[in-house]
C-alpha cells in the first residue's frame, strides 16, 4: 500500500471513529413555522433573528452549538403538518419531538400517540408553577402534562389610532376607546363610519373559517355559556350564541366591516389604513409595529394592539398555544436526557420566542424588563391569565372550527337564518364528535 492509500484509509478511519464521538445522540425534531435557511440557516445568535421561522431556526442552531453531543435533525412540514404526523405514527416512524397546537393535543393524547412529559420536566428542573396558568391548562390532560408549552396565542384588536382619533374614539392617554358591550360597539362602529367614511372592522370573511369561530368562542366564554358541557357534545342553539350571531350580522348588514377579503387582503388593508380595527392574531404584532415606524406608511405612528374587549359579563378570551410534544415510541436514556436538555433550553429562552408576538408560557418572562419593554406587550399580558381554550377533552378542534365558521358565515351573509345556521352547526359538530 503506497503512502497516498494509507492516508486515505487513515482519513476514512478517523471520520468513522470521530463521528460518534462528536454527536452520539440524535434528536429528530419536526416543526411548522416554515423554512428560512437562506437568512438564518447558520445563525446562532437568536437576538439577531426576527419572525417565527428565524427565531425558531436560530434557537435550534444555538442549542446544537451548545450541545455538541446532541445532533439535531429538523424536518420542516407544511402548516400544520398533522396529516404527515399521523402518517408517520401509522408507520411507526414518528419524530422524537414535534410542534403541536394545544387544541390538537387531545386528538393524539386520547389514543396514547403522545407521551406525558412530567418526569422529563422534573429531570429538566422545570417546575409546573413556572408556566402561566393559561399555558399549563393548554397542555394538561387528565392530570398529566403532554407538551412543553412555548407560547399562548390569541386574536387581537389591531387598532389604527389615527383613524380612531378622527372618529373621536380615543382616550386622553392616547389609547383607543374600545366598547364594553355589543350595543356600544355598534354605536362606536356607526360613529367611526360616519366620521371616517371607512369600516370600523377589517375582517377575514373569505376563504377562512377560523376567525369567526374564534371570535364566537371568545364571546361565548364572556357570556359564561357552557357550550361544551361534555367534550363530545356542543350546544349552540342557545340564547348566548344567538346574541353573538345577531351582533355579527348587524355589523355585516350595516357595512361596518370590510367584506369579501381573504387573509392576505385583510392584512394589507390594515397596512393601508382601510379600516379602524383588524381582527387577527398576535403573530402580526412585529409586522405592524415595524410598519408603523416607517414614515411612508399609512399607519405611521398610528398602531396599537389590544386584547379583545370585554363585551359581556365574564372577563375571558379564547386562546390556543404551541407546544413541543413527544410522540409515543421507545427511546434510549440518552435520548430522554437530550430531550430534557432541549426542553430546558426552550423554557430558558422563552423570552426570545415571545419576540415573535406570541405571549410567553413562562411566568418569569412576564416580569422580564426586556419583555415588558417590547411594544404593546404590557397591554397584552392579561391574555396569559384571562385566556381559556376549549375544554381539554374536545377532539378534532380544527374540524369543529371549520364547521362552525362555515355556518356562521351562512347566517351572516343571509344564506341561512341564524337559528337554522346554529342548528346545523350543532348537528354537524355533534355528528362529527359522536362518530370518533
Amino acid at each position: 500500500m503506497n503512502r497516498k492509500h494509507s492516508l486515505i484509509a487513515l482519513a476514512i478511519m478517523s471520520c468513522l471513529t470521530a463521528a460518534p464521538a462528536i454527536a452520539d445522540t440524535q434528536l429528530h425534531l419536526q416543526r411548522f413555522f416554515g423554512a428560512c435557511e437562506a437568512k438564518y440557516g447558520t445563525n446562532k445568535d437568536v437576538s439577531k433573528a426576527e419572525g417565527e421561522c428565524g427565531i425558531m431556526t436560530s434557537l435550534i442552531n444555538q442549542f446544537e452549538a451548545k450541545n455538541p453531543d446532541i445532533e439535531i435533525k429538523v424536518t420542516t412540514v407544511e402548516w400544520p403538518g398533522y396529516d404527515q404526523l399521523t402518517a408517520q405514527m401509522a408507520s411507526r416512524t414518528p419524530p422524537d419531538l414535534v410542534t403541536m397546537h394545544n387544541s390538537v393535543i387531545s386528538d393524539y393524547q386520547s389514543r396514547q400517540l403522545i407521551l406525558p412529559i412530567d418526569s422529563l420536566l422534573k429531570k429538566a428542573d422545570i417546575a409546573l408553577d413556572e408556566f402561566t396558568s393559561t399555558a399549563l391548562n393548554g397542555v394538561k390532560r387528565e392530570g398529566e402534562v403532554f407538551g412543553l408549552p412555548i407560547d399562548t396565542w390569541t386574536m387581537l384588536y389591531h387598532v389604527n389610532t389615527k383613524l380612531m382619533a378622527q372618529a373621536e374614539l380615543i382616550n386622553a392617554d392616547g389609547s383607543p376607546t374600545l366598547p364594553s358591550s355589543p350595543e356600544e360597539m355598534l354605536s362606536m362602529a356607526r360613529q367611526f363610519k360616519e366620521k371616517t367614511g371607512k369600516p370600523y372592522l377589517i375582517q377575514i370573511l373569505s376563504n377562512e373559517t377560523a376567525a369567526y369561530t374564534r371570535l364566537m368562542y371568545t364571546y361565548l366564554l364572556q357570556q359564561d355559556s357552557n357550550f361544551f358541557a361534555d367534550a363530545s357534545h356542543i350546544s349552540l342553539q342557545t340564547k348566548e350564541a344567538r346574541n353573538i350571531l345577531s351582533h355579527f350580522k348587524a355589523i355585516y348588514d350595516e357595512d361596518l366591516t370590510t367584506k369579501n377579503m381573504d387573509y392576505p387582503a385583510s392584512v394589507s388593508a390594515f397596512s393601508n389604513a382601510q379600516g379602524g380595527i383588524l381582527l387577527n392574531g398576535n403573530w402580526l404584532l412585529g409586522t405592524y409595529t415595524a410598519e408603523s415606524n416607517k414614515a411612508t406608511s399609512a399607519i405611521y405612528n398610528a398602531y396599537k394592539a389590544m386584547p379583545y374587549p370585554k363585551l359581556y359579563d365574564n372577563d375571558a378570551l379564547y386562546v390556543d398555544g404551541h407546544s413541543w410534544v413527544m410522540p409515543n415510541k421507545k427511546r434510549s436514556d440518552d435520548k430522554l436526557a437530550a430531550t430534557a436538555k432541549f426542553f430546558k433550553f426552550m423554557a430558558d429562552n422563552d423570552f426570545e420566542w415571545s419576540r415573535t408576538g406570541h405571549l410567553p408560557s413562562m411566568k418569569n418572562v412576564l416580569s422580564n424588563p426586556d419583555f415588558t419593554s417590547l411594544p404593546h406587550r404590557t397591554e397584552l399580558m392579561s391574555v396569559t391569565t384571562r385566556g381559556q381554550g376549549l375544554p381539554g377533552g374536545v377532539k378534532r378542534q380544527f374540524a369543529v372550527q371549520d364547521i362552525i365558521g362555515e355556518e356562521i358565515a351562512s347566517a351572516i351573509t343571509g344564506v341561512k337564518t341564524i337559528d337554522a345556521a346554529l342548528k346545523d352547526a350543532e348537528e354537524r359538530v355533534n355528528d362529527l364528535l359522536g362518530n370518533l
Partner: protein
Amino acid sequence: MSHLNQASASEVCVRSPEKSISWLQNFGMWLANNKLLLVLIACSLLMLAPFLWTVGLSLKSNQELMLGASAVFHFPYTLNNYADIFQNSQVFRWLANSLIVSIGMTFWVLILSSLAGYAFARLEFPFKKIIFVIILMGLAVPEQAVIMARHQIFSALEMHNSYVGLILPGLSAPFGVFLMTQFFKAIPPELDEAATLDNANKFQIFWYVLLPLTLPAQATLGILTFLTSWNDYFWPLISATEQEMYTLTIGIASSQQNFAQSEGLGFLASQAIFSALPIILVYIFFQKHIVTAVAGGGVK
C-alpha cells in the same frame, strides 16, 4: 410655393378619411375572418394571466406585497426571492428526488403498460377479457379510497421514505394498459404473421416489430405519467415524511412561513415558478406529443 404646399396639405386632408375608412374596413374584414383566432387569443390570455401574475409576484419583495398585490405593476423588481430559493440547501435535493421519482415511474409505466398492452391485444390466455375489465375498473377507483390500505402495506414492508415507496404506487396504471392495448390493436396483424414466417418468437415480434410502431403512444403515455408524477402531492405527503426524501411539491409547501402566507407571498410565488420550470420545459419540447396525448387519449 406656399400655395402649392397648402394644396397638397388639403389633398392629404381630403384623402386621409378615405384611407382610414379603408383601413377600418380592412380591419373589420380581418376581424370577421379571424373570429376564431380572436377567441383563442382571448382564451389564451385568460389562461396565461394567473401564470404571469405569479411571475410578477415572484419578482417583488415580500414587504411590498404585504401592502398590496398591486405592487406587481410598478418598479422596483427583484430577483431576491429566487436567490433565497437557491440558498435553501434542500431545494436541489428535492428537485433530484422529483426527477428520480418521475423518471423512474415513467420508465416502469412504459415497460409494464407496453407488455400488458401487447398481451391484451395480441395474445390469447384464459380470462383475458375479465382481467382486462378488472384492470379498467381501476380507472374508477380514486386514490383516496385506497390510500389507508396502501399506506399500511407500505408501512409493513418498511417502504416509506424510499424511492421505491414513491414510485411503486404509480406503476398500477390502468390508463396506460388501456392506451397501449388500443395502440397495439390498431397495428395490422399481418406484421406479426410476416415476422412469424421469419421465425421470430413472441418477444421478438413485440420488441423488434410492434414496439417501434407504438412510439407515438409511448410518448403520449410517458409525458402524461411524468406530469402526473411530478405534480403528485398526496402520496409523497404521507409517504416521504423525512425531509431528505421530500419531492419538490412537498418541500416547497413546507417552506411556507405562516398559514396564510401573507408575509412571504413573493417567496412563495418564486417557489411556484421554480417548481414549474421543468414542467414548462417538458411542455415546450414535447408540445406536439402532449396535444396528441390529450386528443388521442380521448379517441382511442
